[in-house]
């Protein structure tokens, strides 16, 4: 590594021995290619073997290493020390809005439960189709949901979401995006079932369109627009039911 050095202030917490989180400071050398994850690995291997954080793929696709980097949710593997040349110290903390477990590890089980709640699977339009045939899905039809299928479930959007911060019942950006993704897949017939989830107060209407989730999304999924489009569908559904009731 080159001679450039950078200080890191890292939140430390071990539930068995610590009453409250505290910070510790480390310093590592870095070069142009060094990611925050590389720096963390270096700190763990040479200075703090008891430092806990999640990581796996190193290529921004597994979603493990999301954390607060100078107060902003990012993937540690896709954020580079070189981008913090102007600051003296890089602060690392676990993702906001999730309970802390240990050091940089937080409990994401609430998000996972919500992702699984939206019926994130095909409810088939044609159950009898044999396994020798595909569905016709034009590139344009694919394009309707493709972007919203790119979510890696890293949790950055939940850490950014002001609504989720206030109200943990809110189903949140990633889950609503996934809901929209399946509703707009022409192989799927599950929209009525998912609209029930979407229409709830904890569904799309819980969002106040701040848009910070889209700003921080490392995969440019843009949950805000999925939720906005979801609101449109939900409103239409409401009006439809209203007219049905009044017939």
């Amino acid at each position, binding site marked *: 590594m080159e001679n450039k050095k950078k200080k890191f202030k890292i939140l430390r917490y071990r539930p068995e021995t610590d009453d409250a989180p505290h910070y510790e400071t480390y310093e590592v050398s870095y070069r142009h*290619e060094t990611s925050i994850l590389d720096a963390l690995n270096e700190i763990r291997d040479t200075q703090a073997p008891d430092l*806990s954080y999640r990581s796996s793929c190193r290529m921004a696709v597994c979603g*493990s290493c999301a954390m607060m980097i100078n107060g902003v949710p990012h993937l540690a593997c896709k954020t*580079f020390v070189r981008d913090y040349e102007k600051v003296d110290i890089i602060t690392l903390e676990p993702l906001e809005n999730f309970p802390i477990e240990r050091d940089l590890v937080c409990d994401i089980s609430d998000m996972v439960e919500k992702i699984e709640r939206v019926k994130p699977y095909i409810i088939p339009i044609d159950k009898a*189709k044999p396994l020798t045939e595909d569905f016709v899905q034009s590139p344009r039809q*694919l394009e309707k949901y493709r972007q919203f299928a790119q979510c890696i479930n890293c949790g950055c959007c939940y850490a950014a979401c002001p609504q989720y911060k206030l109200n943990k019942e809110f189903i949140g950006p990633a889950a609503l995006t996934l809901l929209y993704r399946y509703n707009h897949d022409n192989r799927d017939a599950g929209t009525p079932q998912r609209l029930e989830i979407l229409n709830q107060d904890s569904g799309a209407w819980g969002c106040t369109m701040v848009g910070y989730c889209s700003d921080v999304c490392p995969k440019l999924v843009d949950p805000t627009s999925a939720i906005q489009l979801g609101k449109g569908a939900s409103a239409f559904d409401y009006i439809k039911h209203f007219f049905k009731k009044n017939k």
Partner: protein
Amino acid sequence: MDVIKTDIAVIGAGGAGLRAAIAAAIHHPELKITLISKVYPMRSHTVAAEGGAAGVISPDDTLEKHFEDTVAGGDWLCDQDVVDFFVSQTTKELYQLEHWGCPWSRTPEGHVNVRKFGGMKVPRTWFAADKTGFHILHTLYQTSTQFKQIQRLDEHFVIDLLEEDGQIRGLVTYDLQNGIFKTVLAKAVIIATGGAAQAYSFTTNATIVTGDGMALAYRHGVPLRDMEFVQYHPTGLLGCGLLITEGCRGEGAVLVNKDGYRYLQDYGLGPETPLGAPKNKTMELGPRDKLSQAFWHEQQKGRVFETPLGPAVHLDMRHLGEKVLHERLPLICELAQSYAGVDPANAPIPVRPVVHYTMGGIETDIHTATRKPGLYAAGECASVGIHGANRLGSNSLVETLVFGHVAGESAADYALKTDFGNESKLTEDAQAAIQKATSLFEGNGSEFAADIRREMGKTMEEGIGIYRDEKGMQTTIDKLRDLQARYKNIRIQDTLGRVFNYDFIRALELGFTLDVAESIAHSALQRKESRGSHQRLEPEYQKRDDENYLKHSLAYYRENDIPNIEYSQVKITHYPPAQRLYGEQAEKSK
């Protein structure tokens, strides 16, 4: 201690584990399935697969062609009955994923599209842009959530299997979140934990790919088969080793040395194909072993770029144009930009061969059953017999689907006709396994896992690389013995708590990887021929030797000792061993 009773325990929640769990749930809905993984399912390394998955659908394609490509690609070390079954199932599995919502890339008419891939005669690689593994994994994970009989234990690390009278009856696991241990009593256990490329220092693989499941089976007496065959993917991003998919070359990317010369034509893969007109099984679309070996020769000749991050060649795809690149290879564009500062539309990507895949693994039969009743294995951790000495790109994702499916059904059938065994005895054994693992917390040793891990990766690269000779391999073998001795004296430093104690897990993982590394090194030393990804430098071993080595190697674990290497027959049904030919040589031989 918590005891969970389940019909089927699946270790690993990547492609194979999820497919197995779903198959079991559909096959016998009354069974309880416990899906255990050290990470959340969507973090599994399947997520990183890029290029695609092979399934015959083109009008000019046939199952026989896929069979021939696979067997020849594997340098005839494949079990042909298994390959026959495999190619007959892959397309069905891919259509199943289509029905489950996988966003396959489409033709303008709205049908599933296929792309060219290395070593394949005909375009047969289904793809979802260049994020095929990601989409397959998420499709399987999301689909699995509708089966309430699948109970997941996320972030649970399996430390040992439980065995009674030669039968596998469960496992012991460390629950990271709660810092406690749990015993899982299971009528059948499926291992689906992926490969072991973390035995090497320069790898495409995620840091979780540490060979845990291979070592678990190995320590319980199941041989690891064909472990000497380790795939170097020809195009790893310089520095970090991230995978630059073969899909790039399928779309038309070319490899050039420092003179701007497309060197593959010098290695039996030519003639040079025109830019923008990639040809199946020729030049850049040769098989991975041949391409990585060509790099090695170029390096010997001094024709590669020497850079601060090591030797490299250039993968050039500028001629594809920005539109095609962003439509077909968006992840590659993102990775090249982020990790190498290169926009592939404007500059070539510096690459070199990188450890990518373990062809070998836990020996299983065609039904994914191991020699131990009650124990099944599927996916990269297994050696079911389809990859031989070199895996073809886009055969591994479908392997997880085809054999994950088989494993789920096989294990379900088995679970129906067996019981839990002697529960109190098994729980006692679990206690002993926990005792052994937690002795690490007593903190008497003086060795650090990080040092041993680094030295292991280095010695594996040096001795068991693309080309091998006895001297180099013996040096690595001696080094690994030394590291094993030092490992016994290991000391974890995080001894004050057990919640999310990664120091503890990484020490256990290292123990697993070291065992697997030894099986690789010894299997390699004993194979005195060159075949597929195993290439020997000694003049007398530079050719394939079917007379003596058309055999699977079997590495048997011996406690506190080096593995014992034996051999078993390769099943040849109707495609007798012949020369592997690519480029115009293949054309001429027709």
